[in-house]
């Protein structure tokens, strides 16, 4: 015999049946059932199998403390592993599978493992499988391990949300104490948020026994109404999972299986914990048999779900308040016997299900045992918040002691198990009155019988027994953390909620110490297992790292641009419907023969203004910038204080108090932070200001032999005379200011025309229209990277690495001669910075007809049969301009090895190349001034 659904009682709705299956068998429950209550009512005793010995596992608890009834559930084609049957609301169509069992929990072939238990003690794997080799055994062990099965299907609809909340008083737990505290606090006019993890609020209210005139549903309804009428907010199915720094709590609101929960981050001025208490298991021989439930769970199933857990029930407890529970169960039609848990020689009878109880010479026939070795307060959140615990000898458990002044613990969670006292405590907490003294409560201490030959379970899911604790003790694994880690006690799905005190109690007995002297392990969040999705909120897909978009994006799309992500920007990679190779070759030719029209807007643009601007830029640049004349532009490096190249780019001087810095597109934010740092650290911040204008301007770049002609036709500048390379002019376009910088990243004559975003589309179209008349056309980022590589122009981060200093790139003069201080200066003179074997930027050429070198290939020295890396290829392309492959590389002392042949190594293959100047095209630079 096992569970029986009564025809009355409980909070379920008997008019709404719900169909589901368990291990393929059709079952039925009712609305407001959990999977566990429905299965219990359906007569199921074995829900799953334990982790190690595959012992049959029935349900122990009725809520989140249950370690046993873990199941896989499929719903609407998506499967969810390791669901707690006790907390999962029953839903129509669920296919429930027992875990760690095949073919079913009832008949699991691996159940035979239990026969070998004596050879599988705690930590057996540390002592075995070393010879001949662990890897021979591991696959088999892996196969045996694990609980639920992960379906690898992805549910796009399984999306969490995050909400931020604030209240003056947060009450966690809506049992009698929590309801009272919330009501009292709301009545004082405070903003109150009451949360509870169950769908139906009331907590232990429904199973309170022996309280004359107590009508739970009515009383709960009255409290809820009072709270609401005073403006209090109430959230059901909401579990507080953790307390974090600066008084923030994370709450998770369940929305049913298949729907991701909502994460709430709550800050409250005052937190009242009314999280209740749970029964401790009694440690005795075969105490893991299905049909042995906690006393609170047994009465919870009866009162909340209308399920009587058995017909012949033995209550095995040391609790002074056990008798009224017996009365409840008798009134529900069970034959009840009360057995003292302190009896010697306790043993459970039966295998697949408990059939009786032996207590010394007495034998009790029963189909169900409701056990309790006393109540343990749920103080996880108190510990998260840094609250301390004290051992209470009368209660035989830890209770809250000193802690943060903004948190109070009331009711069962504080060890106040009697209803009246709990309500008094709740009222006091709500109005911040002094806590009434904890009422005396004494239960007989229970210690495991170490002389018992049988196995006494401590961690039901992980199969940790008293013998395992004894082994840990024998091997000097006596620290509680060692005990936990060595035996895996407390590391199961319930994270020790049921096993913690029993384990400590066993170790205390073995050491001949008191439990508080043994100590406790740390309580870690989350309080209950939470899907990873709950932590995701908006960090999904594109929102993980939003792309920066160009004002000209619609124009590029109209030209069939292929887009790519470059330094966080979505930029046109090439135009048209040709393959990349064909398009890039065509665009390179356009650029070299006529003109490239490019979107240069992604480059960072930062303005430096103020009376000290000139001194400032001279300080943040490696190159001397103090001499830059108005209207002129200079190329330079910014260094980190470590002397490493941080960024490169051009800077224009507008006048003595205004400079415009152009930096790598991926680097604008970092450069901005770097500049602000130095501005505020080393300058008078009222005399120099920095402003990132990247998003305010768009730039159309025109580069190539026909660039000057095209720019002239655009009419931006009235006078194009005396506009040499590396200078800046202002003009107008469409009535708006336009800034024209003559700078080049292709090696040809080149102009960057910057205008406001509002007019840039007109500028772009006009540039294309005029450009087309001269053979020019749009050119994307891929062709640009080839064009710049032909000239040996670097991309910081690609052609530099974590050791590159400016003199490695051929820019040695400021290091030798700049007299003013600049960021990174002193670091350019360390022993390492002076070494002759530094990696330097060079070009590499390949033998005639050889393919281009792979990027990432290493230049190697072959010495005595071994290869040593001298550097690596950083850039490599087929140059359409030169009709041969080109490459850039960082090579040890490369500048001194010009013309030398070198060996190249790539993924096991050898190649040859010759060290060449980085600049492969127009080394004299005649085209730039053409």
């Amino acid at each position, binding site marked *: 015999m096992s569970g029986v659904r009564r025809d009355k009682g409980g909070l379920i709705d008997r008019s709404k049946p719900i169909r589901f299956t368990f291990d393929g068998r059709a079952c039925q429950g009712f609305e407001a059932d959990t999977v566990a209550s429905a299965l219990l009512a359906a007569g199921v005793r074995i829900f799953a199998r334990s982790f190690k010995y595959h012992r049959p596992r029935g349900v122990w608890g009725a809520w989140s403390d249950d370690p046993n009834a873990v199941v896989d559930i499929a719903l609407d084609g998506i499967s969810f592993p390791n669901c707690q049957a006790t907390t999962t609301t029953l839903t129509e169509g669920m296919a429930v599978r027992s875990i760690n069992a095949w073919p079913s929990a009832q008949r699991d072939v691996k159940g035979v493992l239990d026969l070998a238990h004596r050879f599988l003690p705690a930590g057996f794997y540390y002592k075995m499988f070393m010879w001949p080799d662990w890897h021979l055994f591991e696959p088999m062990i892996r196969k045996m*391990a694990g609980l639920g099965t*992960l379906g690898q299907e992805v549910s796009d609809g399984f999306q969490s949300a995050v909400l931020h909340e604030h209240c003056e008083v947060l009450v966690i737990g809506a049992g009698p104490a929590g309801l009272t505290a919330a009501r009292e606090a709301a009545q004082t006019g405070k903003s109150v948020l009451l949360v509870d993890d169950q769908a139906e609020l009331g907590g232990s209210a429904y199973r309170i026994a022996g309280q004359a005139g107590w009508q739970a549903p009515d009383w709960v309804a009255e409290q809820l109404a009072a709270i609401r009428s005073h403006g209090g907010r109430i959230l059901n199915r909401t579990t507080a999972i953790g307390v974090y720094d600066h008084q923030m709590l994370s709450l998770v609101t369940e929305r049913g299986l298949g729907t991701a929960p909502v994460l709430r981050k709550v800050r409250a001025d005052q937190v009242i914990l009314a999280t209740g208490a749970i029964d401790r298991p009694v440690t005795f021989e075969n105490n893991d048999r299905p049909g042995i439930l906690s006393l609170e769970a047994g009465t919870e199933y009866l009162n909340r779900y209308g399920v009587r857990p058995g017909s012949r029930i033995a209550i095995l407890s040391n609790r002074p308040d056990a008798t009224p529970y017996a009365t409840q169960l008798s009134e529900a039609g069970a034959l009840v016997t009360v057995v003292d848990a302190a009896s010697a020689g306790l043993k459970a009878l039966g295998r697949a299900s408990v059939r009786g109880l032996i207590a010394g010479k007495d034998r009790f026939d029963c189909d169900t045992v409701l056990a309790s070795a006393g109540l343990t307060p749920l103080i996880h959140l108190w510990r998260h918040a840094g609250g301390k615990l004290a051992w209470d000898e009368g209660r035989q458990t830890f209770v809250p002691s000193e802690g943060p002044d903004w948190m109070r613990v009331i009711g069962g969670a504080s060890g106040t198990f009697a209803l009246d006292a709990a309500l008094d405590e709740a009222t006091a907490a709500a109005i911040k009155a002094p806590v009434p003294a904890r009422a005396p409560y004494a239960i007989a201490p229970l210690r495991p019988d170490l002389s018992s030959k049988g196995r006494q379970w401590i961690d039901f899911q992980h199969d940790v027994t008293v013998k395992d604790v004894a082994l840990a003790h024998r*091997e000097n694994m006596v620290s509680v953390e060692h005990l936990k880690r060595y035996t895996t006690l407390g590391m199961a*799905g319930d994270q020790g909620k049921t096993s913690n005190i029993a384990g400590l109690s066993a170790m205390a007995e073995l050491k001949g110490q008191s439990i508080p002297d043994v100590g406790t392990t740390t309580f870690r969040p*989350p309080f209950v297992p939470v899907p*990873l999705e709950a932590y995701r909120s908006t960090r999904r897909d594109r929102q993980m790292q939003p792309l920066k978009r160009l004002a000209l994006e619609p124009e590029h799309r109209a030209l069939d641009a292929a887009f790519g992500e470059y330094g966080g920007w979505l930029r046109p990679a090439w135009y048209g419907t040709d393959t990349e190779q064909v398009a890039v070759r065509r665009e390179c030719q356009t650029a070299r023969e006529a003109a490239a029209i490019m979107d240069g807007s992604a480059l960072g643009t930062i303005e430096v203004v103020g009376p000290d601007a000139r001194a400032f830029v001279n300080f943040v640049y490696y190159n001397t910038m103090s001499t830059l004349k108005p209207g002129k532009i200079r190329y330079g490096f910014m260094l980190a204080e470590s002397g490493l190249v941080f960024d490169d780019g051009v800077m224009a001087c507008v006048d003595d108090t205004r400079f415009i810095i152009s930096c790598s597109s991926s680097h604008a934010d970092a450069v901005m932070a770097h500049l602000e740092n130095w501005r505020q650290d080393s300058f008078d911040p009222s005399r120099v200001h920095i402003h990132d204008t990247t998003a305010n301007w768009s730039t159309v770049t025109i580069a190539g032999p026909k660039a000057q002609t095209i720019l002239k036709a655009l009419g931006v500048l009235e006078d194009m005379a005396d506009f040499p390379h590396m200078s800046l002019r202002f003009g107008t376009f469409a009535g708006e200011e336009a800034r024209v910088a003559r700078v080049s990243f292709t090696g040809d004559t080149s102009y960057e025309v910057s205008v406001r975003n509002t007019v840039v589309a007109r500028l772009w179209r006009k540039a294309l229209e005029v450009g087309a008349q001269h053979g020019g056309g749009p050119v994307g980022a891929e062709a640009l990277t080839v064009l710049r590589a032909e000239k040996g122009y670097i991309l910081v981060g690609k052609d530099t690495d974590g050791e590159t200093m400016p003199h490695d790139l051929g820019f040695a003069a400021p290091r030798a001669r700049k007299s003013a201080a600049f960021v990174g200066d002193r670091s350019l003179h360390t022993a390492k910075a002076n070494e002759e074997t530094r990696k330097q930027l060079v070009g590499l050429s390949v033998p005639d007809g050889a393919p281009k070198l792979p*990027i990432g290939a290493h230049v190697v020295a072959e010495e005595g049969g071994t290869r040593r890396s001298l550097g690596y290829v950083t850039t490599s392309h087929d140059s359409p301009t030169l009709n041969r492959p080109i490459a850039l590389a960082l090579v040890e002392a490369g500048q001194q090895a010009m013309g030398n042949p070198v060996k190249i190594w790539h993924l096991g293959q050898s190649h040859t190349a010759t060290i060449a100047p980085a600049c492969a095209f127009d080394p004299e630079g005649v085209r730039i001034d053409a």
Partner: protein
Amino acid sequence: MTRHFSTFSVIREGLKGHTGWAPLWRSPAPKDAYDIIIVGGGGHGLATAYYLAKNHGLKNIAVIEKGWLGGGNTGRNTTVIRSNYFYPESTALYDLSVRLYEGLSKDINYNVMFSQRGMMVLAHSDAEMEMAARTVNAMQLGGADAELLDARAVQKKAPVLNFRDDARYPIHGAIFQGRGGTGRHDAVAWGYARAADRLGVDIIQNCEVSGFLIEGGVCKGVETSQGLIKAGRVGVATAGHSSDLAAMGGYKLPLHSYALQAFVTEAIKPFMDTVAFSPMTGSYFSQSDKGGLVIGGGLDRIPSYGQRGNVPVQETVLSGIIDMAPALAKVKLLRHWAGIVDVSPDSSPLIGPSGTDGIFINCGWGTGGFKAIPAGGYLFAHLLATGTHHDISRPFDPDRFQTGHLIDEASGSGIAH
């Protein structure tokens, strides 16, 4: 008493109810003086003691630990073991570690379960594939094993990863190191402790250092919660708490302490053997032999000695995992925690003299100390026993911060530690 571990001894003890097992280590009271005292009973400290006794024949050694053995980062990390580094100095160091790990279980007669199921560093773009090639070549040239996998090969090893067309970070391939994998972190501490104890090392738990005995500028011992203990030399291996010891010992270190978080999920039947790391999100995971997913990611952003994690980084790490393997969204997190790691300017370790005579340091392992335990212990023992560096530890001397010989893997290889 049964001292030797083997399948045979477990069976024999099984028949006797496991009553004959010897303690894994003694719990001795500290002596008045030792030749060498190691401060810190984590993996590095215990391994150092073991190799001092085994390789250098020193017997009069103590390891003192303020709490319980392996209670710091050794028992808090995500158990990854690998040597996929870029610079030859790093490869030499970490590959020594992998090689020592490969023989460790037999060496110390304790199964540390080093499972060489492989480690993948994903590449999410053509540019990352180029960087991956650079690293694979560097590893091969440095003597470590490495392969460059294409997307198809990655999918074969780990079908759970995100191969959808709309992935934010599409998988182009990976750096694969087959000899990489995971080990059982606690077992490393316990195994070394047991082996060191067998060689006569005194392992003293619940013994917190409160100061150093300095005479004439030279360290002569340590003040502890169990009294003054004299020492010829002191080796400090206290990870995130190194700066705190430095303040007591009168030397300074170039370290910042941060919380590094780790996460474990419920146990699931095995579906993936290798470790997978995404440099784009900084998140990685592996599946333990027990079945739980062991998840890690980047450092917290706030310097901290509080051994608990911070919410924003939890969210970043876990969303990174879901992006990498969307089917894991429904897997439930069981527990998260943090360790305090000591991060050096180049994210490489510091092994060498402290600046105060008689005190030597082994610290700065940042997020990657576990994988280096055997090598860290081996090299630190060499330094403490001989007073001079082993060739492999020489580049990691703190003098590199003056000479500029930094070993900055983060910028060299794109792989965070």
